[in-house]
């Protein structure tokens, strides 16, 4: 390992608190603003459509940011990004559940029969639901008490974030009517973010396979 030329960069306690407060303000503020404008028919011609799009797309944006934190921590190097990971990860879930609520309450308008039949019949909705359930599991187990109790299991469960990414992107791609649309770029960005982890895992697998021979 290379010797470190300088001390890892850190926030003061105060700076961290301020930054977290700002993130809370923006993330919840935006969601509240969307619903407020939507209820008052200020969200474009079809507020339901606008709300579905915004909550979905921002769940993915936040997921990207969350997945960027650990490579960023290594690159800096600094332990700071990791301190924001749980918070941002939970916001991914908050936006995803807002997306689902919009679908159930405002798109299908609580037509339970339709909701249940769509949930099982339509593959792209099933894919989205699986991602949402996984996100819920991660959110629930993000409590420090549970994390300690779960020990090794916790890490294994939280690796499912790597399944959530392709599931969410597949759900996005599948919801479009043609191929050449925004989701292609999201897959590209996803791949770029995951590049380091993919090559490292591949290298490890190759090494393990060689060891067996």
């Amino acid at each position, binding site marked *: 390992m290379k010797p470190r030329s300088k001390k890892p960069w850190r926030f003061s306690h105060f700076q961290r608190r301020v930054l977290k407060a700002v993130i809370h303000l923006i993330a919840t503020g935006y969601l509240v603003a969307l619903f407020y404008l939507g209820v008052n028919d200020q969200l474009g011609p079809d507020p339901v459509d606008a709300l579905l799009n915004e909550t979905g797309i921002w769940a993915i944006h936040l997921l990207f940011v969350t997945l960027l934190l650990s490579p960023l921590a290594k690159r800096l190097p600094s332990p700071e990004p990791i301190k924001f990971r749980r918070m941002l990860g939970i916001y991914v879930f908050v936006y995803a559940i807002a997306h689902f609520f919009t679908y159930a309450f405002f798109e299908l*308008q609580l*037509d339970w029969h339709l909701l249940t039949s769509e949930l099982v019949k339509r593959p792209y909705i099933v894919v989205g639901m699986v991602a949402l359930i996984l996100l819920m599991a991660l959110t629930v187990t993000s409590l420090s008490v549970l994390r300690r109790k779960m020990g090794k299991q916790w890490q294994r469960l939280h690796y499912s974030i790597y399944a959530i990414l392709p599931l969410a992107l597949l759900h996005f791609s599948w919801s479009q009517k043609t*191929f050449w649309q925004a989701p292609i770029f999201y897959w590209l960005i996803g791949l770029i973010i995951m590049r380091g982890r993919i090559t490292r895992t591949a290298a490890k697998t190759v090494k393990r396979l060689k060891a067996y021979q």
Partner: protein
Amino acid sequence: MPKPFKPSVRLTDNDVTDESLYFNRRKLLKSMGFVGASTLLGSPVKASGWLWGDDDEDNTVTPSPLSYSQPKQYQIDETKTPEEKVTSYNNFYEFGTGKDDPVKNAGGFNPDPWTLRIDGLVETPTTLDLDALLTQFPLEERIYRLRCVEAWSMVVPWVGFELAKLIQRAKPLASAKYVAFETLYDPEQMPGQKNRFIGGGINYPYVEGLRLDEAMHPLTLMSVGLYGKTLPPQNGAPIRLVVPWKYGFKSIKSIVRIRLTDKMPPTTWNRLAANEYGFYANVNPQVSHPRWSQASERRITTGGLLSRNRVPTQLFNGYSEVALLFKDMNLTRYY
């Protein structure tokens, strides 16, 4: 001896950014729709009521008032979709795949001069210019329900004339069985035709088709206006088809050519995904789209999220008089 210079990064011709890409990089970024954190603050403002259609592009075409009659049987009493919603929530991939793209990108579209040609299996091939289209046929207002294949709907007061009158003028031959329609192909005016990331990768020009008896049905309208004025570009200026008992994608916009043929013509969405979009595309609550149910629809009028606007979808969008056209047809098979 001095060492020869060795660049630390070796680049070959393969690494050179293609010139067209380089010059279009901003457009490309824009079309990606992923604009990072700036959208966080930008989109609620853009999406909200205060700043609709504000963009830097100035509308060069302003809709002008039309004169028309209002036949009683076509003045239905369902709540109309407000004009600003009809003209700002459009599927017109030639101007972008987002619902708000057409209103933003079609402002500079110029439908004048225009020619519409009717040919193929007709006795007298005919070409009509914009003035002829607006004046040679008596115009009437018809309030139709518009059901999109995406399970939303609107109620729109169109102004136009029956397609039958146009076809009759060209005198169809007995051998004609189908009518093929074609949208303008003009990549300079229609950015979606120039760039597949804007236009969704559809094969342009957009084409549609009807059986001749469907085309001759009195409900089938050639629309030149809505809400009493000429069509704005995003709604298909200067002339478009309106077939109220079929999903909206059948109602092709900005038509330049109508051709009568004896074979079923190809249609754009059917070519793109034949399992999802058929030639007939009759509104039918029993036949779902593979990815969603068509049993009900959300009617876009006024009111925000809390308005209960989901209504049951009706067979043939409620225009039961067309059922005769399909009486011996398996509607599940020929969707």
